[in-house]
């Protein structure tokens, strides 16, 4: 019994001190609170019927976004903890082990559990509406993708309080992460959680690829697609090619750790450099997976709020294709210092610089979309306008990093940290905020408050620059990333302190954002027209929020900026008057995706703690739920004409 108690204390990390106790307490409170609230307001059935079993792309998109905002909070808290520890030399607020775990979870969560669900959330929210169809190509698979992501995120976050977090960095290089140097379940959490969410992401890539290829409304040719949909199309292709590489890398490393193989070990003929190559063959395209959709968002927002057509549409498409291709031949720039020789380094250096060319074309096209426009600085537009200079700094320091001999000096330093936060925050996070302000009325039928939105933008943008700009200098001063502390006497202290102040301002910006959501939910202006921004693409043609079937009659598209054209010619989205409605074919809800992901979760736990019985139960459950789907014959229903008429009448479209 005593042995068990000891084991449990260690397993639940109760011997790790107040940070863990506090987390346990907060998690406990939140869980109990949610359960009590759901029970008290009798919401369980509503939750299950409307959300947990839904296959509606709009609702799945919203669930992705909620998860992404929660993960931004978690990752941001990690960031603030690290900034607190680094704010002055020789602090002991966090010890080395804790700091190592926190930068690992911060990086992993921000990229895979914040940026990814945020952009995939907007794939879901906007793409089917923009191409004028009723759902994605595979709605059931879409639900599975979401729940796999969700199970993985839960598993990964659990590591904080059960068994210990990974501490190998988000890049997780062997041999450090092999069992010899890094025992315990932490690293397994990383490998298993990424594996599970990766499967979901590949499915998402396939889903949107097919959706955009096959489900476009009549007349919506590829060269009439809204630019955001184009970016999703290209991103999906990158996902389909890049993610399987990650799957392989993670699997090999997990086999090393769980079953004692020697793919990447020091002894037994392993080759750690192989992992590093595999990781970045996925990892570099991954950063384009999170930035290209942001480019798409900015294209929509800039054109809408300049009240002007997007400048250089074809050039925008071609440059995205060029970026996508180049993104697969630059991965070595992440390890110029691995001694591949001058030929290899020169090739990858120059190919990396070349990405600046199509990116530059895009920047100029955005600028010239605003040129001669009437630029309205709404909150969404502020993020787009703020993006240009911030991303420019990120991109150009990226070009500086692409010079191999210079990179020998910048590598892994705070110069790099500053660079990638400029692209990830200045690009992706700004893009996600722009999209949130832009599509919020479409998702919820309510506008976010503009005044709070401005406060949010300025606070976050200024804080961001105060936090990360000084870090370029820290890099020149010789400060490396992943150092949990540093001695006095190098002049690093004051710069780090400034940086920490900036991080706090970003935190305040985030709180204003949360306040804006709450405030607007209660007092926000309702969007009764469905088209609050005088929009150009088809999502603005339907009600806010869109009805379950999106469009009562699938619109016929006559050109680019389809809805803009319809407005100019006075056409109705439902076509000429008197065209009768027909029953609409829709997929059924299903509880199986969430149950299947529960089995993935169980199997994941098995692989993490090497409890093979659990792993087998989980995998069997996955197989059974998959097989069941094959025998499901009634997976769709029809929305009757009367119901459509009622909905359309309420929207004033009859």
């Amino acid at each position, binding site marked *: 019994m005593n042995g068990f108690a000891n084991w449990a204390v260690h397993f639940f990390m109760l011997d790790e001190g107040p940070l863990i106790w506090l987390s346990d307490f907060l998690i406990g409170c939140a869980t109990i609170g949610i359960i009590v609230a759901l029970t008290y307001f009798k919401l369980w059935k509503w939750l299950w019927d409307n959300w947990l079993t839904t296959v509606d792309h709009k609702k799945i998109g919203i669930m992705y976004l909620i998860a992404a905002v929660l993960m931004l909070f978690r990752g941001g808290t990690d960031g603030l903890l690290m900034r607190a520890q680094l704010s002055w030399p020789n602090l002991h607020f966090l010890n080395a082990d804790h700091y190592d775990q926190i930068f690992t979870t911060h990086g992993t969560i921000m990229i895979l559990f914040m940026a990814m669900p945020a952009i995939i959330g907007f794939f879901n929210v906007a793409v089917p509406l923009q191409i004028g169809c009723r759902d994605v190509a595979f709605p059931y698979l879409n639900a599975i993708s979401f729940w796999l992501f969700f199970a993985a995120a839960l598993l990964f976050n659990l590591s904080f309080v059960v068994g210990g977090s990974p501490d190998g960095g988000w890049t997780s290089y062997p041999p450090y992460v092999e069992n010899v140097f890094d025992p315990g379940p932490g690293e397994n959490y990383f490998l298993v959680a990424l594996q599970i969410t990766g499967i979901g992401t590949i499915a998402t890539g396939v889903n949107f690829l097919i959706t955009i290829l096959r489900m476009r409304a009549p007349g919506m040719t590829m060269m009439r697609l809204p630019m955001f949909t184009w970016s999703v199309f290209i991103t999906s292709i990158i996902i389909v090619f890049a993610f399987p590489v990650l799957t392989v890398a993670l699997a090999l490393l997990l086999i090393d750790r769980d079953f004692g193989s020697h793919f990447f070990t020091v002894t037994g003929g392993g080759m750690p450099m192989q992992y590093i190559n595999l990781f970045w063959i996925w990892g570099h395209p991954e950063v384009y997976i999170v930035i290209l959709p942001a480019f798409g968002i900015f294209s929509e927002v800039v054109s809408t709020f300049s009240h002007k057509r997007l400048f250089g549409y074809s050039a925008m498409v071609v440059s995205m294709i060029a970026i996508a291709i180049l993104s697969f031949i630059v991965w070595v720039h992440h390890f110029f210092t691995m001694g591949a020789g001058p030929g290899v380094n020169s090739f990858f250096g120059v190919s990396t610089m070349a990405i600046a060319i199509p990116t530059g074309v895009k920047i100029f096209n955005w600028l010239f979309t605003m040129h001669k426009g009437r630029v309205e600085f709404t909150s969404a537009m502020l993020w787009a*306008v703020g993006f240009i200079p911030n991303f420019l700094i990120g991109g150009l320091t990226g070009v500086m990093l692409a010079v191999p001999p210079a990179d020998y000096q910048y590598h892994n330093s705070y110069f790099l940290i500053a660079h990638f936060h400029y692209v990830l925050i200045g690009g992706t996070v700004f893009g996600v905020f722009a999209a949130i302000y832009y599509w919020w009325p479409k998702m919820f039928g309510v506008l976010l408050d503009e005044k709070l939105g401005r406060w949010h933008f300025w606070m976050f943008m200024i804080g961001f620059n105060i936090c990360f*700009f000084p870090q370029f200098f820290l890099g020149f001063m010789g400060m490396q990333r992943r150092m949990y502390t540093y001695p006095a006497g190098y002049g690093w202290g004051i710069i780090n302190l400034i940086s920490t102040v900036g991080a706090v301002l970003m935190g305040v910006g985030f709180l204003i954002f949360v306040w804006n959501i709450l405030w607007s939910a209660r007092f926000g202006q309702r969007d009764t027209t469905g088209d609050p921004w005088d929009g150009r693409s088809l999502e603005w043609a339907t009600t806010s929020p869109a009805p379950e079937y999106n469009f009562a009659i699938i619109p016929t598209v006559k050109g680019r900026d389809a809805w803009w054209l319809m407005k100019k010619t006075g056409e109705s989205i439902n076509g000429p008057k008197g065209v009768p409605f027909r029953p609409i074919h829709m997929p059924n809800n299903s509880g199986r995706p969430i149950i299947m992901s529960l089995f993935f979760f169980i199997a994941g736990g098995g692989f993490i703690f090497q409890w093979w019985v659990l792993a087998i139960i989980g995998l069997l459950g996955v197989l059974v739920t998959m097989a069941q789907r094959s025998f499901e014959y009634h997976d769709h229903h029809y929305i009757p004409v009367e119901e459509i008429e009622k909905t359309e009448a309420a929207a004033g479209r009859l």
Partner: protein
Amino acid sequence: MKPSGRRVRSLFIIVGLSMLALAGCDDPKYMPVLSPQGPVARSEYYLILYSFIVMLLVVLGVFVIYFYVITKYRARPENKDYVPPEIEGNTKWETIWTVIPIIIVIALAIPTVAVTYKLVKPPKVEAATTAATGKSLTIDVIAEQWKWVFKYPAQNIETVNYVNIPAGVPVNFELTASGPINAFWVPALGGMEYAMPGMNLKLWLEADHPGTYQGRSGQYSGRGFAHMTFNVNAQTAADFAKWVQTTQQTAPKLTQQAQDQIQKPGLLSKPLTFSSTEPQ
């Protein structure tokens, strides 16, 4: 709301703050990357400077257009009735802003490739060499958890967590590791390279003058990584020869016990010196 005004002001504040932080940091000790103390670091520094200037020109160019566009074409009550023209694109302008980046990339690529090739060759000998140094010195570097071991094969000397080199003589560091990957970095003398198990990478460095330069690990390798620092002491050729001789005569031999101590994960309280490189 006046975004452009506030934006300019915030920009000034940020730049001002950074400058303030940097004032009083012109001591080379504070900015090792920007005050190179050897030929390798110097080539890298010139490339950094060159690429920075080119990028600064781009930033300035784009910012001019950017601020022009967002101030001139802002929506104002006066231009409420202005209907923007629908412009598809403009081949002439689009060609211009494709060609300019291409030229910039080429201008950057040429020196980049040249220096990348140059750095794999030893830098020039700058000082009179002696028997102790030869025309170039080879030192084997092993990254342990979490310390740096330096073996002088020709001199049969081993040091831990510091390394002495002759100034003005190219030093060939041969990098490897016994466990996790680390990166060997002496910012004042030159950029880093990985020390990896089972691999043997060469890194040429040279110090212009005698002096002490700090090195550290550039690649995270676990708990003690932040403390993986070492000093590089560059000495005159004569001083170096003297140090080699006294070390060979007076330093203890490397024992098995000391070897085990070095290989065990952990930190050392002070640097070590031995007059042999294999445990006796």
